[in-house]
């Protein structure tokens, strides 16, 4: 490595530094023992905290919820709604994060089903892959309530609680039609997701019935994220110079659209109507960029789902399909949604 140093100097006993070698080998392990100890202590700490919860199953009934991801404020709010109602009853809720893995969701829920919970709330990673879990729950006589995203095996679940997505689409169309009766609009749909399909159905229904002057220039399939929506919107703006309105199916998509519209220098000329009711979108409504968003109420979905579970446990009948109302957010009321 150092060519200027003659090799015989390296081999000289004074320069070989033989004492350093074992030391270098030892050091990481000397460091390792306290590390090991620390990790064990952390471990014990974590376990202890959970112990009172688990050691006293007599103290309240067990409920569990599995979300496709907890990396979304929508589901965090939904979880809060569930938790509030369940803890008011003196019971406890275990929240499970499937991390977009159906197998993890299935395993997590089979762990819980072994414990004979009072009920399970399920937000499926995908609706094809939950059948095994639904069958296992039925065999164990555990009622399942689906939240947010519907499943096809409706006969295997007690109830499905979700936003009224068709109405959310209708509200968006109404807001658009009233603002621009002659709008030339693009729809950015996400056809894999039932909720998004419903929104588009409500949207086109109202446009067709009440606003014959509005024409739909293009319909494109986009995953509802800002990153995915932005380039698609830019292309649409290039292709249709007269495009003056867009319906992206959710707030993240809408924010991508606003960014594309600004970049194309058509700020304020293209009307954006969307669905979700997030704080970010409300901000855009106040400051310009987005015209309206149909707000969903995830916390309400959670509390209604928990309510349905308690009704069922009390022997009362429960509606198979519970739709949670949505509200139109415009400049008039956006301030309430910028919490």
């Amino acid at each position: 490595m150092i060519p200027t140093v003659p090799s015989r100097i390296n081999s000289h006993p004074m320069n070989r530094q033989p004492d350093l070698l074992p030391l270098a080998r030892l050091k990481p392990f000397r460091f390792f023992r306290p590390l090991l100890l620390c990790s064990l202590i952390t471990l014990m700490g974590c376990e202890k905290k959970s112990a009172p919860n688990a050691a006293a199953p007599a103290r309240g009934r067990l409920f569990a919820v599995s979300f496709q991801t907890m990396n979304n404020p929508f589901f965090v709010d939904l979880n809060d709604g569930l938790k509030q109602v369940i803890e008011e009853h003196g019971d406890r809720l275990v929240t499970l994060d499937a991390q977009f893995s159906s197998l993890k969701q299935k395993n997590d829920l089979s762990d819980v089903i072994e414990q004979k919970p009072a009920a399970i709330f399920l937000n499926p990673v995908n609706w094809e892959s939950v059948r095994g879990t639904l069958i296992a729950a039925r065999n164990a006589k555990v009622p399942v309530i689906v939240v947010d995203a519907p499943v096809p095996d409706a006969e295997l679940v007690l109830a499905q609680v979700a936003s009224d997505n068709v109405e959310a689409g209708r509200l968006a169309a109404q807001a658009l039609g009233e603002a621009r009766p002659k709008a030339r609009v693009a729809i950015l749909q996400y056809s894999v997701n039932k909720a998004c399909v419903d929104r588009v159905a409500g949207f086109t229904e109202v446009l067709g019935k009440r606003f014959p002057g509005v024409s739909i220039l293009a319909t494109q399939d986009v995953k509802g994220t800002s990153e995915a929506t932005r380039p698609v919107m830019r292309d649409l703006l290039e292709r249709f110079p007269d495009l003056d309105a867009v319906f992206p199916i959710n707030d993240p998509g809408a924010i991508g659209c606003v960014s594309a519209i600004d970049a194309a220098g058509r700020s304020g000329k293209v009307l954006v109507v969307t669905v979700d009711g997030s704080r970010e979108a409300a901000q855009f409504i106040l400051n310009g960029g987005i015209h309206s968003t149909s707000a969903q109420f995830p916390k309400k979905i959670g509390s209604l789902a928990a309510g349905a579970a308690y009704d069922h446990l009390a022997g009362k009948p429960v509606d198979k399909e519970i739709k949670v109302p949505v509200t139109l957010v415009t400049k008039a009321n956006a301030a309430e949604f910028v919490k």
Partner: protein
Amino acid sequence: MKNCKAILPLLSAAVLLLAFFRALAPEFLSGSNLLDLAQQISVNAILAFGMTLVILSGGIDLSVGALLALGGTAAAAVLPAGGFFAALAAGIGVGALFGLGNGLVAARTRIPPFIVTLATMLVARGCALRFNEGRPMGIALTQETFLALGNSRCAGVPLPAIFMVALFALGSGLLHRTRYGQHLYAMGGSREAARFTGIGVARVEVIAYVLCGALAGVAGLIQTAQLYSAEPASGQGFELNAIAAAAVGGASFKGGRGTMLGTLLGAIIIGILDKGLNQAGVHFSFQYMVKGAVILAAVGSDVWRRTETR
């Protein structure tokens, strides 16, 4: 004998964890819960068996998660027209084929296995996403034989667990009773020395990757049957779980050290942890921390013990 000694700490760790969770929840050691545990760990254990072979050769395989998804989707695509056996062949065959690619490139070039299999992971994921536009593919309920792979029981034991045990036995036999096993250990210990003793190291390495890919295909079939659908986007991060199981089980990333029994115990320990923490109602944020700490502690104590006795 030496083997038993190496396994003892893992065994005691597993027993300790079982006792710990039993203290938290009395029903933890019930028969049905333990059978459920066996079913749950089967996919990870089968991936980890293949991973062990590759790790023994001194390599690593990051593509198993994507191959699991591809194996499952390929089987689901073939199943309606080709029937049960064609689906099995497609699922396992496609895994083995990509494994062959991994092995040939890793053995013949100087590209590190980490990079080779990282590339394969992306290519295989892309192939899986070609099926059904990336959407899940449901398995018709009439495909009873195929669905039985993941859901039925033999004498009360879930079939995936039986496959896991059978593959464990086969893998152990391969490592300890065959010449191939000897060659794999020799090669992982020192590639150069193995080559000088006349072992065809390239062949040994390629076979390890082929088996790893094929096992990923098997895991894909089992997952697909369990979920009643093949998901092109599934299996992300599964390679890391498999590596964790092998590492906890005492496999050394320098190659040449590790056993199937160790890996099985590693998968069991991780499975007990997952199940126990879920059933103890530990918040998922703590579960990540605990799992990380346990993996570090398990591998650390193993490394520490070996340097002590050296």
